[in-house]
């Protein structure tokens, strides 16, 4: 008997909220980035879960494609994000988001 869909959704929601908490409350930029990654993962779980439970019957793979695209975007975002963080670190000697609150870095 398959795992009911709502379980996946609940776990994904939990994962999403944990990621959200990470984003909202961590002081370190990289911590925030990790939170974002978690949230994206949660989204992916949802996508694949829906693909598996709803879309498979129509033999379409939109969910999977979408998940792949989310993964690529996440990768690109992580790369650029980290580049930015390092650039900020190099110019401000800190990675602490709360300190980087001036428009002019």
């Amino acid at each position, binding site marked *: 008997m398959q795992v009911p869909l709502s379980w996946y959704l609940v776990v994904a929601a939990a994962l999403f909220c944990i990621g959200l908490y990470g*984003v*909202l409350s961590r002081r370190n930029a990289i911590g*925030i980035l990790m939170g974002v990654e978690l949230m994206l993962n949660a989204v992916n779980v949802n996508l694949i879960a829906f693909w598996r439970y709803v879309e498979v019957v129509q033999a379409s793979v939109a969910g999977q494609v979408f998940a792949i695209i989310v993964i690529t975007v996440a990768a690109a975002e992580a790369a650029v994000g980290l580049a930015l963080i390092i650039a900020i670190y190099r110019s401000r000697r800190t990675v602490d*988001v*709360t300190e980087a*609150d001036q428009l002019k870095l």
Partner: protein
Amino acid sequence: MTANLFFNLTWLIPLFPLAAFAIIVLWTNRNQLLSTWVAWIGIGLAWILGWLIFWLAGYHAKYLTAPVENFPVPLFSIPTGSTELQVGFQVDTLTGLMLFMVPFVCLMIFIYSKGYMNYGTKAVDSRYSRFFAYISLFACGMLGLVVSDNLVTLLIFWEVMGLCSYLLIGFWFEKKYADPNRITPKQAGLKAFLTTRIGDILMLAGMLLLYTQTGTLTFKEIFSSEVLEKLATTYAFGQVPWATVIAILIFGGAVGKSAQFPLHIWLPDAMEGPTPVSALIHAATMVSAGVYLVARIIPLFVAVEGGTQLAVVAFIGAFTALFSGTMAIAQNDIKRVLAYSTISQLGFMFAALGIGAYVAAVFHLITHAFFKALLFLGSGSVIHGVEHGHHHTAHEGHGHESPEGDLRGGEFDANDMMNMGGLLRRMPATGWAFIVGALALTGIFPWAGFWSKDEILADAWNAFMHGTEFGVAKFWPIFVWAMLIVAALLTAFYTARLVFLTFAGRPRTEAAHHAPESVPSMTWPLIILAIFSTFLGLFGMPWASQVYNLLGKYSTILGEHIPHGEFNALVAGISLFVAALGWLFGWLLYGRKPLAAAVDPLEKPLGPVYTLFKNRYYIDQIYQKVIIRPVIGLASAAYAFDDRIVIDPIVDGVGRFGRWLSEFLKKAVDNPIVDGAVNGVGRATAWSGEFMRATQTGQIQNYLLVAVVTVLLLLILFIVRS
């Protein structure tokens, strides 16, 4: 038919001189010769067309045996409020006669004034071409008046003529006289304009009333029977019929323009203008316009049987004739004597109209125009000669342009007859022409004056004997006839005086001694006018009067009612006798032993009466005191009252109120509300800016938190709602 073709062209007649005026004013005023020729051509064309139409109107009438239908041809319409006023021109026998006289006289005077204005000589007038422009404009005015078919255009041309007379009288506006109470041309022009203006106002009032009553101003509609009937029967202010009121009012205009009794004061002073002007305007045409006007609307006068308006006209005419005749006797200025004679002759014409002698009046108008123009041009030539002589004698002295009196004041007045004498031998052409004019004026047998003046007297006598068609009461014409007879005597006397003083005897001054004959261009017009003055009368002989045919039989103005004056030997004899008597007295006083000194032999016997005549019955002074001074006083008082008591306080008051209001508004409205609002907005933005600043912490996570919270709220909302 060819006649219609030319009748259609009548509206061109006034246009030729108008075109001449425009051309001179706009282009040719620098070239004096060119201006002269333009003026001549203008009036020449008008003259040719005029005579052609006169001949056609006359011929038309004779052969077609049908009365000449007055021939209104609408040109264009002037919108007058709700109704349209059809403006056009008309031709009938009366217009024909006028078109015979006016353009020809104008042409003679135009030619004469070239010489008079010293064309080509050193002393030519600096404003030479302007003079020709003005007289062309005047000719257009007169011809227009004659041709127009309704009262409105008549009034328009009437005013144009008034303007021209003002401009021409004051032609030498810079001339000043040492003698303070001697009127300068500028003042004379103004006086002429204002006095005629009074007359015009009366006329305008009459026209307005006519319009209100009948709703139309064109002659054709006015003289339709039912309109006349309506005017005669409806009564204004209870008793007086409208026809009388309107007639008298319009006659007032004629009085003003033709210088009849109450408003005659401007004509003698108008002599300040150049002599051709006097001849043209103040002898032949303009003054006769009044007579033409009354002749044109005579049906209005006869609309009411035995109406008072005819009596008014007659008495004013007769009285003016006598009154101005007396004044003429005591005048030394040659032109003023002729001025008074003009006034008296016009009096004759109005008297004739008054007693219904319509044909006699118009015939006298035509003849008078010719010999009076002749007399004036002659006097002009005399003055010109004396002026020339004066220059000749005072050669080394002062040079001055204007031929009239010298600029420095009147030490030597070329117009004064006392400075002349014995000029016949020196100026034979002018002299003899002048004498022919004088004979025509006084009404000696073969000359025109006799036929026209006698006819008036004859009709006056008939009117007295057995009344006339128009219900003129039987007895009162006798007074008119009596006054006219005395006026005729006086005319003869002062004419004789004039002739003997200027031409007979020995020259009393050096200037007169050296007075040369005028240039030919001035003398041959005199000769032509002299010829006309003599042979014109033959047309009016009672037993074969062409004039009667034109105006009576073939004219539709009065149709058959016009009295056909048979030749009354008795009346003719009396008038001839009276004229001869006048000449006799004149010869006795002035001709027999030519005066040496500049004293008037008449002065001693008449004594106070003479001074009365000389000072023109002090009417000028009376008017000055009675009318002008009070009016000016009233005006200044009104001004004073108005200015200090009414307008100034009002204006200042408004100013003060304005300032007070702005002050009040500033305190009451501006400061609290406007400033308040503006500052309030400023403060509000500042405060909100301050308040909002707090939200920009720069912490990215704050923004994220806000975003998440809003998502939550939306979510809750969504759940709560669903």
